């Protein structure tokens, strides 16, 4: 049982708690393709195995689609963001994914996706794939690489921005009576967050069902299932769940800035509240470690509509 204070909006109970978030390094790319489909394909592949820094080295996702008339080369585009715990990890993961997932993707081209305090190598690193046939072009202060590929050329800007002002680990715990209603509310929240610039939800479809706690009975594991939020363990553990909660889903949010994360959580909360408790979530909470580990605290009561 939760001992937290709470308040209610449109029937949805909101815990007076906070999401505890951490500084991250963030970067991103603008990927274009011959069609929306292929721009999205490159973006999806590149951000596929990027749910948590713990196992994937980085957290990444699609920020938004960009219309053809708004991209540098006049083709449909997608902006992806990528976050990691250090600048070095960030650069390494970005270049690795760029090489494995975007360079390989037919018709793709890559441009800087983020303006940051620092520039990291993208094309400048990947160019060597050209085996000496790569061509550098500098236009309006930016450097581009043209790397010959089997479908023509892979065009890739030399660098993209990297910011250490990023924030990772914004989250919402959406609790509902059953899977269907909880999912309905969570999906609405994810859709709302997707419209926020500069923030992504790295887990599958933006949602994670395997919330975790720190530590495990097994020595080798650093984290294990968050039993306090598992409905099937309600009776046998010190549960955080009320009897009326039959399902919990979590949205984890990474953003280029503190504001982007706050904005995303605000949008998510608003969508959940708007749906109301009848069709959607009964209760919304957030995950934290007691406030001792992460410097950024997003209090739900500040963000709720």
């Amino acid at each position, binding site marked *: 049982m939760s001992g937290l204070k709470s308040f209610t909006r449109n029937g949805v109970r909101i815990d007076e708690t906070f999401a505890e978030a951490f500084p991250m390094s963030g970067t991103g790319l603008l990927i274009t393709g011959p069609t929306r489909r292929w721009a999205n394909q490159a973006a999806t592949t590149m951000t596929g195995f990027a749910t948590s820094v713990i196992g994937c080295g980085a957290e990444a996702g699609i920020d938004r689609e960009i219309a053809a008339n708004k991209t*540098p080369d006049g083709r449909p585009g997608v902006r992806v963001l990528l976050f990691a715990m250090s600048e070095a990890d960030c650069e390494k993961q970005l270049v690795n994914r760029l090489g494995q997932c975007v360079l390989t993707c037919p018709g793709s*081209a890559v441009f800087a996706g983020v303006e940051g305090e620092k520039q990291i190598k993208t094309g400048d690193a990947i160019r060597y794939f050209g085996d000496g046939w790569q*061509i550098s*072009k500098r236009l309006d202060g930016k450097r581009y690489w043209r790397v010959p590929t089997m479908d*023509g050329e892979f065009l890739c800007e030399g660098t993209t921005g990297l910011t250490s002002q990023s924030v990772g680990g914004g989250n919402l715990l959406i609790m509902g009576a059953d899977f269907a209603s909880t999912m309905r509310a969570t999906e609405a929240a994810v859709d709302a967050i997707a419209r926020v610039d500069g923030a992504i939800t790295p887990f599958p479809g933006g949602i994670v069902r395997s919330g975790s706690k720190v530590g495990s009975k097994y020595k080798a594991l650093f984290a294990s299932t968050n039993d306090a939020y598992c409905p099937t363990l309600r009776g046998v553990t010190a549960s955080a769940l009320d009897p009326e909660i039959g399902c919990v889903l979590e949205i984890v949010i990474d953003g280029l800035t503190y504001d982007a994360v706050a904005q995303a959580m605000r949008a998510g909360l608003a969508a959940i509240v708007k749906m109301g408790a009848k069709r959607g979530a009964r209760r919304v909470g957030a995950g934290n470690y007691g406030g001792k580990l992460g410097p950024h605290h997003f209090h739900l009561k500040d963000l709720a509509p």
Partner: protein
Amino acid sequence: MKPLVFTLRSEPVERLDLSALTPARLSDLSSAAIEKLAIGTTQRPLRVGDVFRLRDGDRSVIRFSGGSSRFDRIAMAMESGVIEVDGMVGREAGCGMRGGALTISGAAGDYAASGARGGAIEIGGDCGDFLGAPLVGEMEGINGGVVIVRGRAGHRACDRMRRGLVAVEKGAGEYAGSRMIAGTLVVAGPVGGFPGTMMRRGTIIMPALPEIAPTFLDCGATPLGFTALYATSLAARSPRAARLLRRALRRFGGDTATLGKGELLVPA
């Protein structure tokens, strides 16, 4: 803000070296001091006051009312500000420019934009030979910035070009892009024979293929994404060049006499 205006009195009897008349170099001078600057190039050099009537104004915008083929080194090494010439100029216009804008309504002589590293140069008329080329002994030609020539360029445009974007609207002479090191030359009119002779890297885009050396090899027509970037960048400054860049292009790789990593692009 009123520009500083130099109005030509009459055709000068000698070549003038106008490199001293840039915003930075005039910023601290009184108009009387400006009038005393020696700009002639012979043993009894003309002074500014002999050649021009001066109308004082903001030193960051300089206008020449009336030009001459004896106006050499206009805007040389300029870093910021604007120079506009209503008329023609001589040699080395905008040579070694680093920033700012130089606009010439008429024609320019040889070695326009020689070794420029930045800024924007626009020449309303034709320009002479060796557009952007290095001066004798120097190793590199134009090294940055954007140059638009509304008329034709002479022979060996962009010789030894290293970087930057040059668009010539009405055509160019022989050996365009000779010994190019890198960079991009777009010529939206007819081009003379043997473009790209001894080019190492770089791109020359032309509306039709002139006579080329056998050390350029047909690589066929494949979409090249980068041309769209150039088209966008040039759209406002030279719609003619932008239109050429939006066409499907065929690539000829060369010059294999040297490194062989340059390219000639013509509509497929």
